[in-house]
């Protein structure tokens, strides 16, 4: 059997496995088939596999297994496909569409590197895969990745620019607010240079495609909410810093406890070692029943330790809760103190007003007394003068 006949047999075997639903066997055979190839044969064999899978019901599942098991490595696959005709390349990308939509985790980690590849065909293919991913269940919100795609709007190849544009539109449909922010920030960054006019136009195009009247309302509402939220966040930050200080103190205490535990464990080990030494000597004499009992005891000990650990966990949880409660109490006390201070101040103010009022009333009384005395003195003087006149008469 020559090499080509052997290959045909292997491909037929793969086809049979896929048709019979024996996907693991198919994956294994494909792994061997590709693995056996030398550098020259690799691309042809890869193409044969892809060709075979393209036409088979279940081929997509096998492909997913191949990617999951790293038999087909996505970056190197795209690089190899770049050397093939566009029909195969793009048909294969189409084959990956459903997997991209449903399991974007398989591809997303490679995306940023592939988008910045030296090969424009790879860049284009990576962007197409991102379009498929954006069309699926996942929301792409990796700022670094989106910025990398944004940079591709100024790629030297027009077809890469077009794909980048489509990718950003596709991502933006699901998260318009996030995308609008990144795009506007980027537009501000590049606004100073005149040669970036085209990129600005492209950004404008993306924004127009992702922002509708409904979405604008949403974005505005979210912005108002976010400003309110920012204020709240400031307050929370203060509280957080206080809590963090307390946490820090607690951690210190925990570390001390751990140190003590370690010391205790070391001591336990030493004791166990001594026991085992003694045990070894005794082992020969100890019957099997005793050994079983010992094992049971050890199991029970382990269980007890587990329970201890659980209890400790619960204790820690309780402590945490208590701390939370204490913090709340402290906050309440602080609030109460503030209220008291305010009351005291108000009382002081009231007492001052009272004093002032009292002083005024005293002054008024004094004036009255003075007035009365004046009247009395005048009357007495009148009486004295009348008496004198009577006497003179």
């Amino acid at each position, binding site marked *: 059997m020559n090499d080509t006949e052997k290959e045909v047999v292997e491909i037929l075997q793969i086809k049979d496995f896929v048709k019979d639903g024996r996907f693991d066997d198919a994956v294994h055979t494909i792994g061997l088939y590709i693995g056996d190839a030398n550098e020259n044969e690799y691309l042809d064999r890869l193409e044969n596999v892809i*060709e075979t899978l*393209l*036409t088979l019901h279940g081929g997509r599942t096998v492909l997913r297994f191949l990617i999951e098991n790293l038999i087909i490595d996505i970056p190197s696959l795209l690089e190899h496909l770049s050397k093939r*005709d*566009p*029909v*195969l390349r*793009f*048909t294969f*990308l*189409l084959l990956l569409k459903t997997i991209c939509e449903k399991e974007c985790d398989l591809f997303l980690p490679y995306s940023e590197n592939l988008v910045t590849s030296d090969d424009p065909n790879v860049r*284009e293919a990576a962007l*197409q895969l991102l379009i498929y991913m954006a069309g699926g269940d996942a929301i792409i919100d990796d700022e670094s990745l989106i910025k990398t795609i944004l940079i591709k709007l100024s790629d030297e190849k*027009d*077809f890469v620019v*077009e*794909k980048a544009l*489509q990718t950003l539109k596709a991502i933006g449909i699901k998260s318009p607010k996030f995308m609008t922010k990144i795009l506007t920030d980027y537009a501000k960054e590049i606004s100073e240079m005149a040669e970036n006019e085209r990129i600005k136009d492209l950004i404008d195009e993306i924004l127009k495609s992702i922002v509708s009247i409904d979405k604008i309302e949403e974005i505005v509402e979210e912005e108002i909410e976010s400003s309110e939220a920012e204020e709240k966040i400031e307050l929370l930050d203060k509280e957080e810093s206080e809590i963090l200080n307390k946490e820090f103190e607690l951690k210190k205490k925990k570390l001390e406890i751990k140190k003590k535990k370690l010391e205790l464990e070391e001591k336990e080990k030493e004791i166990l070692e001594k026991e085992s030494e003694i045990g070894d000597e005794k082992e020969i004499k100890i019957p099997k029943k005793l050994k079983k009992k010992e094992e049971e005891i050890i199991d029970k000990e382990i269980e007890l330790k587990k329970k201890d650990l659980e209890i400790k966990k619960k204790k820690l949880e309780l402590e945490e809760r208590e701390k939370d409660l204490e913090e709340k109490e402290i906050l309440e006390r602080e609030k109460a103190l503030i209220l008291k201070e305010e009351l005291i101040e108000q009382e002081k103010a009231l007492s001052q007003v009272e004093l002032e009022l009292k002083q005024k009333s005293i002054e008024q009384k004094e004036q009255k007394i003075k007035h009365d005395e004046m009247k009395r003195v005048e009357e007495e003087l009148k009486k004295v003068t009348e008496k004198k006149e009577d006497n003179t008469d």
Partner: protein
Amino acid sequence: MPLKEEHILKYLNTESDTKNKSELIDLLRNTIDKLCFDDCERDRIACTLQPKCSRRHLLKLRIKSELKIDDLPKFCYSVHKGVVERFFRNKTVIYRPFDAYLYLIDFLDVFFHGDYRKLNKFISFNKLEDAFKIFDDRIHNRNEKFEYLKTDNYLIFKFEDRIHVLYLNEKYVLCNANRESITSLELLNGICQLYAEIYFPEVKLAFIPSKHVEISLKVPYDILTKISREPLQDNDSKMDQYFWNTFWEDLNALTQYCDQISLHEDKNQNLEIILHVSLLTNNYTEEGDKLKLRHRDLRLIFNFATRIYTEYYILWI
């Protein structure tokens, strides 16, 4: 009522003001150019998987109009060539590239890859004998399976059941000829000769210039005497089945594509069936014009001839 295709065609035929006509055609041309060079090629993946014109027929428009490669949407053409190549190598394709036009050099690159530069030179400079040496070498020494035939203006290739017609003067090739009409009697005669050499070598072919090609088939007397004289019985042979049931249906079908079919007994009492095949069929357009004969129609005629020859002629000679 909205504007329809026939309104535009009628307007183009009847409008006397050439300025109006050219304005309309300009509109059409600009739309086509925008579609090809801007809308479709802008996204290469869409251009590859879902071209904006069905089966890239706008490429055909440009190639048949003898435009050069620089006047074509290049990526679209490269995909088109790739599809022809993949189909030739029996690989998966998005659509089967029937009636695909390629430039001579690209056709040679796809079908005769190792020798395509030499072949292009020989064919371009009309040194066809040198080109035939390469073809023969490939057939006899390199185990390649194809047949070819040269006429004055065409070089016809047959790879398996697919026909490719090289237009020697225009330097382009019709690949996987199917629904395209046969453009001349010379080409019709060439294709008939090529098929006759392969499938029914003893059948008489006659070329009546500027009229038609005659294909004369014979059913020997021995065969005729073995056919049951009565309508079908339960134990009738395959031959009876054919001549009582299918034969007249075949002839009836062929009347659509043949100018004339004549049946008569020759001097040895053999049944002689003469098919007169011209460039026009007996089918009509909505306007009442005769439809042109297509490559796929010709294949039906050849299937009939091959059946009569292999099943009822060659065995009895």
